[in-house]
């Protein structure tokens, strides 16, 4: 990290802190984009899934050691230490407790949620503040690749391996319903071990167009166009990581007047997106869910993504 650390503020003695972070359901867009100085850079727009989340609790103590429970969450432990360093408390350690409702290994972003919740717990323990962009960079430092859930409902095009924002997309996500068609149990993935997609130059040009549409969709709160973004990106992704139910999902999306189909570009999740601002959205969601079950999708579930009211 090149960021300067802060001088310790002695009169603010660290206390127990808590942090919360949400999971995701893959991406609305993932590809290669022109970054600053025209450099090509890998980036994504995460589809946040607030219904799945991680809570972390950090009890500081003196001595540099951070202990974590469950003990396997080493990235979360590393993140807590990085956050302590960043806040000028490198002499501190403590106990980090993580509780998560996010399934591990299917592409729901469990690892990043653990990391981000841990950083937030440390930040809270130190009575400090870190900007989402800073937390995003710390998360990448702790686990090599991250996602943009740290920005909450603010939509950004995020460089997942550098932890930087390529482009803020001009607002928050429009209210969406997500029909998750779930994952196949045979497909536990280690996202970092997947070979990176080697996109063609024609696809990289396509990504620039899809990115432009994403910006317009967010700025104008247009769920239908955001669905186009997701479908276009998911379609390219099929060449690199084909998903068995993708064609069926496209059909279901068309038949039930959905906005489009999104996938996790490094996992096996498939989802169908609905415009939650439309009164008939619930009806379409329900009928699509029934049809998806009839098609043999095992773990069909409906979620709300930043829409008002009772969850579906």
């Amino acid at each position, binding site marked *: 990290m090149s960021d300067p650390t802060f001088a310790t503020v002695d009169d603010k003695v660290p206390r127990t802190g808590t942090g919360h972070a949400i999971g995701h359901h893959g991406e609305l867009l993932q590809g290669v984009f022109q970054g600053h100085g025209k450099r090509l850079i890998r980036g994504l727009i995460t589809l946040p899934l607030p219904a799945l989340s991680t809570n972390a609790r950090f009890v500081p103590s003196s001595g540099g050691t951070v202990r974590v429970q469950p003990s396997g969450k080493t990235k979360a432990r590393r993140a807590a230490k990085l956050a302590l360093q960043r806040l000028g408390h490198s002499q501190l350690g403590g106990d980090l407790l993580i509780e998560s409702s996010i399934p591990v290994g299917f592409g729901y972003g469990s690892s990043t949620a653990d990391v981000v919740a841990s950083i937030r717990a440390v930040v809270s323990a130190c009575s400090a503040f870190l900007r989402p962009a800073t937390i995003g960079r710390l998360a990448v430092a702790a686990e090599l690749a991250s996602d943009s859930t740290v920005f909450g409902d603010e939509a950004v095009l995020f460089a997942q391996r550098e932890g930087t924002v390529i482009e803020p997309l001009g607002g928050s996500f429009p209210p969406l319903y997500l029909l998750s068609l779930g994952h196949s149990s045979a497909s536990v993935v280690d996202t970092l071990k997947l070979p990176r997609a080697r996109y063609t130059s024609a696809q990289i040009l396509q990504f*620039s*167009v*899809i990115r432009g549409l994403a910006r317009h969709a967010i700025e104008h709160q247009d769920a239908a166009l955001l669905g186009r973004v997701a479908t276009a990106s998911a379609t390219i992704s099929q060449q690199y990581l084909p998903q068995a139910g993708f064609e069926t999902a496209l059909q279901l999306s068309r038949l039930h007047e959905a906005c489009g189909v999104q996938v996790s570009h490094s996992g096996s999740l498939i989802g169908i997106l609905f415009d939650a601002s439309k009164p008939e959205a619930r009806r379409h969601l329900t009928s699509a869910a029934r049809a998806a079950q009839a098609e043999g999708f095992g773990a069909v579930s409906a979620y709300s993504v930043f829409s008002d009211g009772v969850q579906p």
Partner: protein
Amino acid sequence: MNSFLEAYETPRLFHLAPNLIAASFALMKLMPARLMLDRAEQEGALDKGARIIESSSGSLGLALAMLAAERNYPLTLVTASSLIDLLFAARIRQLGAELIVNEDPSASGDQWGRLSIIEKLIAQRPGTYWPRQYDNPDNPASYARLAELLVRANGQIDCLVGTVGSGGSLCGTAGFLRSVFPDLHVIAVDTNRSALFGHRPGARLLRGLGNSLVPANLRHNEIDEVHWIGAFQAFMATRHLNTMFGAYLGPTSGAAALVAQWYASRNPTASTAVILPDEGGRYQQTVYNDEWLSSLAGWPVCELRSPQRLDRPQEHGEGSWTMLDWQRRMLVNKMAEATKDDLSRNIAKPPRSTQTGRGD
């Protein structure tokens, strides 16, 4: 920071009607010219200081001359005597380019003659780079930038209207837009005696669109609808853009705008985009000159509000506006439906620029 030419290649976006967005270029061909040179440099096809050669009497030649001046490449442009105008030639030469003028008494533009001149010159000067705008896939690829600008500004696009010369701008932009809008309706604007959609090539009064050969970059199976605009209809439409919007544009833009305004008014719920490729400066003494217009045989004509629908490619006069539902067919298929007499001899001619035998 962008260079002057990068800034200059960026189109102005404005609304011609509430459901019609226009991308108006100062010099559209800068976009393909830049990408073709960039890629040639990256791939080693264009060495530092090597000569560039291309067949162009129009804006691609000017764009190459500007880029060649900026990047210090010597440039040779091969043009036709019927197409060159003095001011344009002076501007090209001032940029340091060499102009070779091929005599074409038939005034068809004689692309075939120009291509054989290029082949001879390349044989004499090894290391010369020929961008080949008609075949080079980087020509259509460069229009990703236009597609991006259009969706950023407008979001949904249901119909794209554009003129065709090399096919790069219309097929390139359409291809990229269809990656997000697969149902996009694509309208090609051509003119009489252009070979692009099955006319026999001949002298054309309307410049900047049409072609005497069929370039590979024109992918006929991406085109839903073709309009042939007679020069006089295009000239009047061009003057209207000036008097109604203050948009002093060239006749290619006038032709495209005419078709786009017609389509947009008939399809009020659809969102239409139109590519306006040129500005009016080059046409001050012609399209914008009443005396010049009066000197033309057949001028004035009645202004048409809608096209005449054809069932096969068929040549009409300069006062005409015709259209055909092309239905994403290949040129040969479409031509096979026409009677033998109407078949242009040039279609079967298969050198390197042809629409047949392509994998897509």
